[in-house]
């Protein structure tokens, strides 16, 4: 019987297999940031251990950093960033600090440097590590204990998850994006639907996505409960990688591409679960509730809790509507918004900024609008195209790179009761600041919303 892509990549990385034990899996790349690493480095020091492979490890500052120029004013945040700097220096790990040309959100910089390649195992103390699966590797988030384990051993003990195929048939209609697709998938299978699985996204609509779009889809795998999501590498992947600083070159490139072409699910392979979705029927999608599965087409209305047959889902919907300050039956495109955020590891890449700029060009925003590039390189590229001027002319704020308003940890937050349209990945209670209310949207919907002040599809703009 054939093997799935996930099985191929997994088997390639098994260091040791023994009956009744998890596999010992080799990790090709370990990404580090300031929030989930300090206690891991402390653990190494206490045990007198070294970092086994600093040359397979890279660090950046992203979660805590302000997105305006200047020092970190919060002393606790500053200590955490300084701690990362000390740890990186002590253990010999490459670090891209604030202000560095290579700095950015951890899941943006890996692909940008060409460090993220097909067939690799990649981990990071961050659940959105699933982003890197867009290149056809197994990439997943880990906790601080596992960060310490990878630092010390470059391996992780793990049981291979089950495999799920999400087959996306047909083509996405014009104006419908990767973000709309993944929000629709999460709404379909639920926040727990992917638990215990590695998801492989397949089908025509996936093949036609750019690498940026594929990263957006894989990024939110965790919001459907799946620790990892992946897409088989193809010519789009190879074209993205070629010439990047850490991509192979010369004969090594040819050898790598030959191997990468074998990284696809065999025709006779069997997945543990298959989910099908028809891309051609999709429209712009937004969330109305407090978990990413509580979403609906922007053209529909806030659902009534009574529509949910399952009592647990019903009570979750009741609670969500109360928190969000919404009434069942309100058309989603009539919900007023205070703040628009374009950025994050989900939608902070150049393609996302271009999409927002295309809508904002020649228009004015009526809400507080933060445009936050995912990395300093994205920022530079956007400025070379004049996108920053488009945003500034429209009245939006053009910021430095960082996680920004995705997670309510740095100065970019919502105030209690404020409502955002956000291109980030989580609409949890308080995620963007205590009492803040979040609607997850695509960059296109975010930009159109900034123009009208209420949740708006680009097609509805005059």
């Amino acid at each position: 019987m054939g093997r799935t892509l996930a099985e191929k990549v997994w088997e390639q990385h098994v260091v040791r297999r023994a009956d009744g034990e998890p596999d010992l899996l080799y990790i090709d790349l370990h990404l580090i940031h300031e929030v989930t690493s300090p206690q891991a480095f402390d653990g190494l020091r206490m045990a007198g251990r070294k970092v086994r492979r600093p040359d397979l490890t890279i660090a950046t500052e992203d979660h805590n950093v302000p997105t305006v120029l200047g020092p970190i004013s919060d002393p606790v945040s500053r200590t955490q960033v300084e701690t990362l700097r000390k740890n990186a220096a002590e253990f010999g790990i490459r670090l891209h600090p604030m202000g560095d040309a290579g700095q950015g959100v951890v899941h943006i910089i890996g692909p940008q440097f060409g460090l993220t390649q097909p067939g690799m195992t990649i981990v990071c103390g961050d659940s959105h590590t699933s982003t890197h699966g867009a290149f056809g590797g197994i990439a997943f988030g880990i906790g601080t204990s596992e960060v310490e384990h990878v630092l010390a051993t470059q391996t992780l003990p793990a049981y291979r998850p089950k495999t799920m195929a999400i087959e996306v048939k047909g083509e996405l209609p014009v104006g419908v994006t990767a973000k709309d697709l993944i929000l629709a998938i999460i709404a379909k299978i639920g926040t727990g639907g992917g638990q215990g699985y590695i998801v492989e996204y397949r089908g025509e609509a996936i093949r036609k996505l750019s690498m940026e779009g594929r990263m957006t889809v894989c990024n939110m795998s965790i919001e459907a409960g799946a620790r990892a999501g992946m897409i088989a590498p193809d010519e789009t992947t190879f074209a993205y990688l070629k010439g990047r600083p850490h991509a192979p070159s010369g004969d090594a490139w040819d050898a790598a591409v030959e191997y990468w072409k074998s990284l696809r699910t065999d025709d006779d392979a069997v997945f543990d679960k298959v989910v099908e979705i028809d891309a051609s029927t999709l429209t712009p999608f937004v969330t109305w509730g407090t978990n990413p599965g509580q979403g609906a087409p922007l053209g529909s209305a806030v659902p009534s809790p009574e529509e949910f047959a399952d009592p647990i889902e019903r009570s979750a919907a009741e609670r969500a509507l109360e928190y969000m300050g919404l009434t069942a039956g309100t058309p989603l495109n009539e919900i007023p918004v205070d703040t628009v955020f374009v950025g994050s590891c989900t939608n902070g890449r150049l393609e996302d900024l271009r999409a927002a700029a295309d809508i904002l060009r020649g228009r004015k925003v009526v809400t507080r609008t933060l445009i936050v590039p995912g990395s300093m390189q994205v920022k530079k590229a956007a400025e070379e195209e004049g996108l920053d001027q488009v945003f500034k002319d429209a009245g939006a704020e053009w910021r430095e790179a960082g996680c920004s308003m995705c997670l309510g940890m740095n100065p970019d937050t919502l105030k209690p009761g404020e409502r955002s349209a956000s291109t980030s990945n989580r609409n949890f209670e308080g995620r963007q600041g205590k009492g803040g209310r979040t609607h997850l949207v695509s960059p296109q919907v975010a930009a159109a919303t900034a123009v009208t002040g209420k949740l708006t599809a680009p097609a509805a703009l005059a």
Partner: protein
Amino acid sequence: MDAFTTHTGRAVPLRRSNVDTDQIIPAVWLKQVSRTGFEKGLFSAWREDPSFILNNPAYQGASILLSGPDFGTGSSREHAVWALQQYGFRVVIAARFGDIFRNNSTKMGLLPVILPAEVVERLQAAAEADPTVEITVDLAEREVRLGSESWSFEIDDYTRWRLMEGLDDIGLTLRHADDVAVYENGRQPWLPTTV
């Protein structure tokens, strides 16, 4: 990590689903570089509501959390596990857990127990009817007991052994350092380094 064999204690019924790790410990608490002091951040937003279950004096000192399904979804922050443990919890029982949270728990010795939703509901109802009722979670027997009732739960042999012995994963892996070195010698030559 402390060894876990069996634990008997009072339980808190948390009748919510999708309890994401941002609720368990909001991001603002994650700025610390230490491993201690996270109990103050546990459910800190929800604890501002006087009617929140953890504010009920009857449940002070409880060590087992009975949650709705999909507990610990979202962020990979292990701080969620630390906060629960430092507050005094030894066990969380739910019908479904976020994968990363469950994994983090077993690394730290906080036992995540999966039971069918109707059993969790039965346990929640018992803890609501009588906050002093005690529940036993027996890892050796893979069993949860309430009075004369009992329910078995599944956990893989390896994780159970590691929890019962209180073993450090890194120490176990370092025994196989030679295997790692052999593997490293056979890695594909084009794989990137960060230098």
